[in-house]
């Protein structure tokens, strides 16, 4: 609005206005950038927590201690104990290994499937593209969480199954993005040149097109990691995911479905809730920063 007002009052200083606007843009991008640095810092802290879990959390995360049930935080148990006396802080640290591990591997599966389908679809075009894209739309139609609870109920809620299921349900957005980029890149001169030199389709796709669209895959992958963590947490919260006693951030919060725990024992559900939110936010910050650096206009669904 201010820019519009400026434009009206000083129509002749249009160039000057553009300059200030780009200066503001730089400042804005800089603050954005600071947020992604903050994101990197938060992710680093959680990664250290996950990697060094057994050394940071001194208690055994699965050790039942019936003398200390639902104790409020103390110096020994800095986040208190749960309904069977397990140390919440240790469970939070060990839970991060499962939660972040599932999300990360699931994401790699999704990126792999999505990139491959997108590349094939965009490169070959024609009926292959048509079939693959209609299939992608078909899978997109189905609510992921609904599909996930069915798959987990049918095949069992082991860590491996959950990881594969989340990966197999998360590739569609990436496939559509990669297809769009491939369609554009395949018309570029260096691709024509490579083909003129007699390069095979596979060589053109993986050696010439793929590196060109990698930045887009990186952005979509980062934002996809945030979704993977959220969906994994929801599944575990509903009690349909990884089975206890193995801790995940999601299943630690299941206890809060009782009103008594919700009201009287916030140390049982607040730490994992805050951990999930902070991690996802940090990952989103990084994704946003990457996207801004690349091209602020790309839309990823």
């Amino acid at each position: 609005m201010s820019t519009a007002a400026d434009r009206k009052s000083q129509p002749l200083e249009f160039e000057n206005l553009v300059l200030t606007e780009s200066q503001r843009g730089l400042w804005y991008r800089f603050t954005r950038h600071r947020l992604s640095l903050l994101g990197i810092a938060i992710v680093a802290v959680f990664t250290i927590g996950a990697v060094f879990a057994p050394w940071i959390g001194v208690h055994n995360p699965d050790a039942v201690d019936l003398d200390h049930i639902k104790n409020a935080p103390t110096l020994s148990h800095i986040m208190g104990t749960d309904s069977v006396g397990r140390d919440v802080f240790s469970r939070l640290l060990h839970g991060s290994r499962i939660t972040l591990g599932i999300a990360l591997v699931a994401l790699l599966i999704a990126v792999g499937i999505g990139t491959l389908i997108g590349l094939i679809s965009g490169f070959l075009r024609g009926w292959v593209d048509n079939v693959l894209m209609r299939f992608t739309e078909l899978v997109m139609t189905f609510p992921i969480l609904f599909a996930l609870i069915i798959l987990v109920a049918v095949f069992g809620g082991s860590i491996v199954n959950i990881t594969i299921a989340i990966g197999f349900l998360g590739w569609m957005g990436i496939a559509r993005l990669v297809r769009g980029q491939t369609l554009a890149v395949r018309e570029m001169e260096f691709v024509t040149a490579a083909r003129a030199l007699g390069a095979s389709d596979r060589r053109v796709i993986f050696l010439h097109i793929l590196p060109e669209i990698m930045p887009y895959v990186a952005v979509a992958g980062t934002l996809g990691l945030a979704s993977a963590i959220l969906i994994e947490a929801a599944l575990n919260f509903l009690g349909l995911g990884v089975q206890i006693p193995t801790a995940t951030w999601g299943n630690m919060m299941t206890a809060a479905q009782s009103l008594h725990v919700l009201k009287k024992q916030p140390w049982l559900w607040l730490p994992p809730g805050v951990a999930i939110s902070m991690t996802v936010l940090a990952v989103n910050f990084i994704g946003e920063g990457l996207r801004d650096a690349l091209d602020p206009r790309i839309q990823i669904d």
Partner: protein
Amino acid sequence: MAPFIIRRLLVFIPMLLGITIITFTVMNLAPGDPIMAMISPEDQLNEEDLDNMRRALGLDKPIPVRYGIWLGQMLQGNFGYSYFTGRPVIERVGSRLWPTLELCGAALVISTVVGFIFGVMAALRQYSIWDYLLTVTSLIGLSIPTFFFALVALLVFGSIWPIFPVFGMSSSLDETFRLWDNLYHLFLPAVILSMDLMAQNTRYARTAMLEVMKSDYVTTARAKGLSEFAVMGRHAFRNALLPLITITTLRLPILLGGAIVVETMFSWPGLGMLSIKAIHQQDYSTVMGLTFFVSTMVLGANLLADILYAVADPRIRYS
């Protein structure tokens, strides 16, 4: 217009069939035997009795044949019988349809209206403190899981400051429908369910509005000497609104997924709460019926969106 709708319908039907085939196959790969779920352990049945039961229920036939039977019956309005209650699936699922439609509809309206107001506000004052606050807040909103929002709402409004009901959709035990009581119960779950989409819509509306504000026709409108209000309201905003139809349908599956969580936590008796229940009961015939209804809803909304878009955007031709 009519040929356009018919062509969309011709796409709709194979997609629906595709989804039911996939679900039916997955469901029948499930370990465990529906017969075992049906009989009680005290029944003294030998292997022959079990085989007879299987044959009577058609469970000895191969999956494609069973799918054919299911499809034939479904087209006649018979969705089979619940493995758990023994009652028709359509009865169990049908009564849950309206609560879910109501909850998702309300969340959709809230997230669209509020999200767009926030997004346009941020775009009109780009780079201001408001823009910055709204952008960061919407990113935070996207990052907090729905169930965490719901837990905090349950704690604050259900316990510390109980001004909203947090259980079910009616204050009385009898199921009589009272509009105000119903809306009063609807408010909190609908707001919680709308959070994620609201944040996404804020971000989307901001980008769309900024894009439109840079376009030539907005410059032309300004050049004509129109007031800033007319330029923004009549030229910019309406064009930013158009792709909203597509965006909304793309996000319907997310909304229905969120409904599973919200319904379970607020005991809202809809499809989402039923799916969790049916999964725990290993009631796969009900899950199959649920799948059919959920996919019909999403695909139906897609169809509706295509038609709406064609009506709203003159650039899209039906032929």
